[in-house]
């Protein structure tokens, strides 16, 4: 039989565990939708885009352009294709006025990080999925969650609060970079990745 003290202690324990694991993450992150509801899967299936680099390209000088500019979208969407609300937003708000879509970048690193896609992809031979997971196959642009204190995207810490059993692409902290560098025996020093 549990004593009264044990019960009260356990109750306190349970309350703070619940608060810590369930309520805290909800309070810590605020969520925002992407400006346009984008579907990777639709693009892959309907327009036959199979290679990430068709939209996420390198510039001539070797730097990585990241998210495609509005001109890339306008290549196909100069006029509305289909009748969805997202299509209307894209064409009327961004493509026609020639304004860049203010995408919220899940894997945005802070200003003091220097990360070269060219070094990792072209020289290191890493596949996109090794860091970004299978996001390219997703059917829906998920909500962008931002940490209210640090201002970082949730993807940097990863979606699991415990940081255990994460899938590739879920978690991009410095320790994650270091783990991979250690596994591959690549030592670049602090300013190898910081600027």
């Amino acid at each position: 039989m549990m004593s009264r003290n044990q019960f009260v202690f356990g109750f306190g324990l349970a309350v703070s565990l619940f608060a810590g694991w369930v309520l805290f993450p909800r309070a810590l992150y605020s969520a925002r939708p992407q400006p346009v509801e984008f579907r990777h899967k639709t693009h892959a299936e309907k327009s036959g885009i199979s290679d990430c680099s068709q939209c996420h390209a390198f510039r001539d000088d070797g730097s990585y352009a990241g998210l495609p500019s509005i001109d890339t979208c306008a290549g196909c969407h100069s006029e509305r294709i289909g009748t969805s609300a997202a299509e209307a937003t894209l064409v009327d708000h961004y493509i026609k006025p020639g304004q860049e879509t203010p995408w919220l970048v899940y894997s945005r690193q802070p200003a003091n990080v220097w990360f070269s896609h060219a070094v990792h992809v072209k020289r290191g031979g890493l596949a996109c999925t090794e860091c970004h997971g299978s996001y390219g196959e997703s059917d829906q642009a998920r909500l962008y969650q931002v940490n209210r204190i640090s201002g970082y995207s949730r993807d940097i810490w990863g979606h699991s609060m415990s940081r255990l059993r994460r899938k590739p692409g879920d978690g991009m902290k410095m320790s994650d970079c270091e783990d991979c560098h250690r596994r591959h025996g690549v030592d670049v020093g602090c300013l190898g990745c910081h600027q």
Partner: protein
Amino acid sequence: MSARYGMVIDLDRCTGCGSCMVSCAAENNVPVLPKASARTGITPMLVRRVSNHMAGADHREVFFPILCMHCEHETPCVRVCPQQAVEVDQATGIVMQMPQRCLGCRYCMTACPYHARYFNWWDPGWPSGMEKSLNPGVAVRMRGVVEKCNLCHARLHAAKERAAAAGKREIDPTDYVPACVEACPTQAIRFGDLAEKNDPVSEEAKSPDAFRLLVRLGTEPKVYYKSKEKWVRALAQSNGGRSMEAEHV
């Protein structure tokens, strides 16, 4: 890749114009703060004016560009840092300062025999809008951290990226030149790989006119100076930075 980047600065060619100081600050997003003085300002590249203390016709002056010497051996700042915020990079020999890791104790500034380290006494700031003229390759430091010359690491990053994009493992040596070297109107500052035998800079470092500051400390600086004038060489050997400091105050 195991380079040992270094410099040879020909003091006979230095006219003390200050182009290196300005271009360094521009490249590395170093702010100019109204309250800063010669003691509290941030000048990772600093040109000092030194004389032979003689009067009349025997009076001679020389300009000494002082930057981080990138000491190869027993690097003083690395040894005292409690935060491991400084390290000698294995691949390049660059003494790398990580301002984000620095806690501002300034042991390294005390330890540095060359006074080549600077403290951010204030939050960096620019007049409204001027932040648009900052170099995107270099993060702005914050108040309370130490900074110094990192041999324009943003330019090294860019060169690495260009090399990787072209499918090369090694950077093209002409693709990585620090801002002060590029800016010097008399080409007094030369930059190269001291470990590379055929590099003109490693050959110049062996010239009889070449010398380093405070070699007796055994820190093996990778910045060499060069002068045909005896008094200049003697000055650097006997008193090192100290007599320069006296001139400066």
